[in-house]
């Protein structure tokens, strides 16, 4: 696994260096992102959504970055998707089971699943795909949990979510999910850190504006896990959230924490109806 993971990293690096040179950030002296060129597809939000139109982060990125995502052979995120496909049928743990032993062909059984997560589990707790995969591992495979943002967990998460590519995000926020939704919403609008920013400060009030070397998007989560050029690898939504909180010069929460899970649910709802893009490519 280790050897495979590092080889994967090297491959990914090579793919990106040749395909997209740094400096993809654009400003008004260079190329304008498609959002500013008015060349984008928006999804009409549900009534309660504070946004007037839902726009994937894809339309805030440069042509080069978009081109990387558009071509499955160029898209470095597929290295993880393919690794996930291998892991899917690999038995692990004391029970000697693989994912495929219970779920058979992911193309059929996982279709739509990634679009509906995070989801409240039978135990009443909210889980995202990463959490659900680890729950399967500990509960049914009798295998240890995979570390957050480890290559195998990213790979399985990306593989599962990829089976919903093109399908609209559709999470449940009622019933047992309601308290998590409210908690996530509260997080979204709470200012934090020395800079006193809430998520809304950048992604609701100011999307479409330039923030130094970057272009503020709506902070939609439909492309995660995403291949981020800055990371030179695939990464989880929680890794990105951690970075966002750090950008407020604030103390962050742990990846997989209840706070980030609740926020993940709320964010998914803010993008309810956007197509899943996993694996997306972002700056």
């Amino acid at each position: 696994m280790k050897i495979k993971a590092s080889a994967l990293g090297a491959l990914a690096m090579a793919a990106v260096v040749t395909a997209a040179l740094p400096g993809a950030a654009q400003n008004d002296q260079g190329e304008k992102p498609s959002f500013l060129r008015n060349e984008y597809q928006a999804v009409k939000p549900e009534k309660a959504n504070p946004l007037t139109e839902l726009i994937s982060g894809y339309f805030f990125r440069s042509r080069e970055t978009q081109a990387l995502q558009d071509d499955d052979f160029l898209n470095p995120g597929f290295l993880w998707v393919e690794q996930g496909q291998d892991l899917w049928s690999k038995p692990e743990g004391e029970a000697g089971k693989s994912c495929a032993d219970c779920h058979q062909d992911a193309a059929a059984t996982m279709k739509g699943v990634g679009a509906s997560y995070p989801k409240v589990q039978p135990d009443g707790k909210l889980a995202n795909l990463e959490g659900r995969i680890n729950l399967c591992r500990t509960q049914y495979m009798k295998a240890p949990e995979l570390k957050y943002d480890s290559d195998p967990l990213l790979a399985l998460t990306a593989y599962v979510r990829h089976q919903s590519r093109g399908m609209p995000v559709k999470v449940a926020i009622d019933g047992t999910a309601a308290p998590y939704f409210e908690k996530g919403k509260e997080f979204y609008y709470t200012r934090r850190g020395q800079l006193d920013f809430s998520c809304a400060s950048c992604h609701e009030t100011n999307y479409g504006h330039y923030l130094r070397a970057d272009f503020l998007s709506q902070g939609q989560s439909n492309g995660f896990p995403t291949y981020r050029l800055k990371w030179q690898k695939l990464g989880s939504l929680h890794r990105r959230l951690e970075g966002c909180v750090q950008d407020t010069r604030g103390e962050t929460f742990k990846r997989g924490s209840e706070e980030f899970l609740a926020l993940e649910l709320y964010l998914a709802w803010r993008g309810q109806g956007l197509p899943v893009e996993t694996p997306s490519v972002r700056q």
Partner: protein
Amino acid sequence: MPWCQRPSHQPVRAAIAFLIAAVVGGPVAPGAASAEDLVAFVVDGQSVPKPLTGTPGDPVAGAKASVNRGGGNCLACHVLPIANQPFQGDVGPDLRGVGARLNEGELRLRVINAKLVNPESVMPAFYKADGFLMPRKDLAGKPILTAQEVEDVVAYLASLKE
């Protein structure tokens, strides 16, 4: 037109000045008094007329602090007439010529804490040490800029006449 000059903000500004005066029993800004290391300052309407320090602000140092990412980082959100800085932001108003639009006292209040002018502003308060939720541990209890840096930035902004 910058938000701070929009006529629609006039009533808000008046209300804030009133509130500040009513709550603290005088025109001393909240926050400043409770953080030991901060110099107390007096808000007079839309302005903090008196400098925070006895040393006049240095516009050259102020320009540097405006670019510094760990410091003021004004460039992240504002356009400034600084050469070789291609990635300027447009979240906040364009600051070219701001020295002709606002006087030093008005600039000082906005650098100290723009939320005293407009509570909905996303602009961070640069001279405020407490009242933040979960600030990074190494930054807790500290303002973004020192009193002298505030004066430097104000001197720099005041120099932007066109």
